[in-house]
């Protein structure tokens, strides 16, 4: 089920009313309702893949119990490996099987050997990369004794399948989300109202910003061979706003929806395009994934301790793995590699933690230096997005060559139109609102908070109007569903 669908507009109020009115006296029944609702939500897309979620849930629940019983380290490690192999096995098969097969075949054929095997027609289960990592966090934390294993299967199943964040995150940690399923829930008006505001802003980002930018990003990337450098760069800019609006919009809707049910999910985006360096960008972009890799890959590898070469190796590993997580295509590896290259100088010069505060914390406008830093970081990010969006390496290369051409400094006449202007105005409006709300959890969280209700409501109605006037009229899936 898509958030931006009529089905969800019916589904959400029904589940909400059942949750708070029919099942409000029993925590267990509320959790059971969440499981059922989540399975319906997921099954709406393809019910067959519910078996994968159920199997992962069963395996990790049982592994958790065994990890508690088992005292010996080597046996505990074996149980952990079972969970890792099962979860990553599913992920590897559905997401990476064809990629590895094709690349092995290509590598062997380069050396004159032909190996058999045909690519399989595999449907990638929506959200598998997200829930796999979430459930893995449980077994790893139980293994590390950071978390007591749960004895409540319903609560655990609800944790794994929690519908607001099941298919595209935020990827929750068991230590953060699972305990919330044990606690009696009290409806909180401020939390729910805040959730509604966040849902509204999420929909605005998706329907107005992402989907309108997508029109131009797709047009330019799909016909890249016929465009000038300036148009190609414009396409990359549009893609930057498309992916941000799309993914952070999804996260906002997910977090806002969770709040309606009394849950607090982790923040996933913190105004990343206002970052002053790449390290700050990565503290603000897809936070739940970045911190997952930091805690479960980067730190166990040694992190930023140890020798310089060790640090460099770790940075590359984390960024390449992060790129590879997004999809079975070398373009994602290049994207990860580029970000590693951007990040490395900051790490080596120990400047990677120099911008920890919100930009222009105590003023309305950034300083000239901050503006320059933000501009450079944004352009670097946009350039990296090219390989993320490109179909393959050759396509990415063709666009890079096209951008760094003398035509970069010309007017992008090929796509110049009043519709393009409209899209740019919408993006500028969006950036302005995000700037105003950059100190908050999400941009419109407390916008106009000191003003009377009629003014705040007028603002929300205006946002709804903008959606009605500018939304794309076809249902458009979220980009991160494919990951």
């Amino acid at each position, binding site marked *: 089920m898509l958030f931006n669908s*009529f089905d969800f507009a019916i589904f959400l109020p029904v589940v909400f009313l059942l949750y*708070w009115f029919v099942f409000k006296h029993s925590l267990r029944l509320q959790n059971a309702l969440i499981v059922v609702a989540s399975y319906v939500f997921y099954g709406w897309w393809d019910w067959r893949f519910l078996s994968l979620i159920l199997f992962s849930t069963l395996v990790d629940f049982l592994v958790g119990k065994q990890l508690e019983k088992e005292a010996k380290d080597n046996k505990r490690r074996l149980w952990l490996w079972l969970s890792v192999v099962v979860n990553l096995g599913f992920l590897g098969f559905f997401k990476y099987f064809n990629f590895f097969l094709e690349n092995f075949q290509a590598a062997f054929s380069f050396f004159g050997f032909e190996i058999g095997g045909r690519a399989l027609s595999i449907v990638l289960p929506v959200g598998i990369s997200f829930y796999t990592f979430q459930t893995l966090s449980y077994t790893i934390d139980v293994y590390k004794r950071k978390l007591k294993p749960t004895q409540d299967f319903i609560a655990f199943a609800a944790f794994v399948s929690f519908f607001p964040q099941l298919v595209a995150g935020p990827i929750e940690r068991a230590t953060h989300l699972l305990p919330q399923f044990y606690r009696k829930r009290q*409806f909180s*008006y401020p939390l*729910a*109202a805040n959730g*509604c505001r966040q849902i509204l802003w999420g929909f605005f980002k998706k329907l107005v910003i992402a989907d309108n930018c997508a029109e131009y990003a797709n047009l330019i990337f799909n016909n890249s061979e016929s465009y000038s450098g300036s148009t190609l760069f414009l396409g990359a800019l549009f893609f930057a706003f498309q992916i941000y609006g799309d993914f952070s919009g999804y996260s906002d809707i997910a977090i806002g929806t969770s709040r309606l049910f009394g849950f607090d999910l982790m923040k996933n985006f913190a105004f990343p395009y206002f970052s002053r360096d790449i390290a700050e960008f990565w503290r603000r972009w897809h936070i739940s994934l970045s911190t997952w890799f930091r805690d479960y890959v980067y730190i166990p590898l040694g992190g930023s301790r140890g020798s310089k070469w060790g640090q460099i190796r770790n940075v590359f590993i984390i960024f390449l793995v992060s790129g590879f997580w997004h999809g079975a295509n070398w373009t994602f590896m290049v994207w990860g590699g580029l970000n590693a290259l951007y990040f490395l100088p900051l790490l080596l010069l120990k400047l990677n933690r120099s911008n920890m505060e919100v930009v222009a914390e105590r003023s309305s406008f950034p300083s000239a230096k901050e503006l320059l830093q933000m501009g450079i970081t944004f352009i670097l990010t946009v350039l990296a997005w090219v390989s993320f969006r490109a179909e393959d390496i050759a396509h990415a290369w063709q666009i890079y060559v096209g951008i760094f051409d003398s035509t970069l400094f010309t007017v992008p006449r090929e796509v110049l*139109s*009043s*519709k393009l*202007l*409209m899209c740019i*105005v919408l993006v500028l409006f969006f950036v302005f609102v995000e700037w105003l709300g950059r100190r908050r959890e999400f941009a419109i969280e407390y916008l106009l908070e000191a003003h009377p209700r009629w003014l705040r*409501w*007028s603002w*929300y*109605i*205006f946002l*709804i*109007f903008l959606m*009605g*006037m*500018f*939304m794309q*009229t076809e249902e458009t899936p979220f980009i991160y569903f494919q990951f």
Partner: protein
Amino acid sequence: MKVFLKRILIFFLVAIPGYCVILVAWSNLIPFEAFKKNMNYKMGSYGHMYTRTNEANNIQKTDVLVLGSSHAYRGFDPRIFKNEGIELFNLGSSNQTPRQGLVLLKEYLNQVKPELVIYEVYPGIFQQDGLESTLDILANGPFSWPVATLAFKANHIKAYNALINRAFLQFCGTYESYNEPLVKPKDGDTYVRGGYVQKDDSYVRAQRIKNAYSWNIRQDQWSYFLEIVELLKKEKVELLMVQSPIDSTYFENILNNDEVDSRFSGLGNYINFSRLMKLHYKEDLYDLHHLKQSGVEKFNKVLIETLMEEGYLK
């Protein structure tokens, strides 16, 4: 919880009129079309539906009522029929599918009391969802509850926006006081009394014949069409289904003409004029399937002869 639900309810009660107010203000005050993305059909837009509706509202009686898409309002010239003593009114509209045709027929059938309804059944129209026509009729057609329900049936934001804007224009009198130009040089169109729109002879739309393909009639549009057939049977009004002639090479390129013909002829009187006459793009048509005035004259002559010979009109 109760406070939350109460506030949500009040918010929606405020938001709905609030949305309408902003939409109306935006649609009518912002001069740039690109900033009205989901409000793209307006009063007096393509096809002269506004003028046609105003004329239709004042007709007491006609011999022949024509329904259908642009093939209808560009294919049946009331002046030619008038020369033969036949009163014809053309109620076609842009991309009109049976879904909208049914609503218009219910709206005007009892008022104009035709002896014969000619339904132009270009199969390409039966392939469409009908949104464009819904928007056109909401913006320019008659304003009534059945027409408003077209928006709910389309269940599309553009249709709701068009309905809201039309309601506003209707109630504040702007709709009534509007004057649509009869000649639109940009489109090469001239409105002719009787609902017809004549294309300038010099106008040609560049088109190329695609690879061979088949018509694929949508089930929902077919069901609406069956309702039209039933309604006319009930009202004892004769129905003639007509496919006006299209470019002969284009026609031959369609793989399932026989199937389409047998489907329509199974419902009653049906003539596919592409089988009776060979017309050609640029000479008789301004694109592959819309007639120029010279083509209309040839086609209408043959049609009138058929109507007389077959006794469709007393």
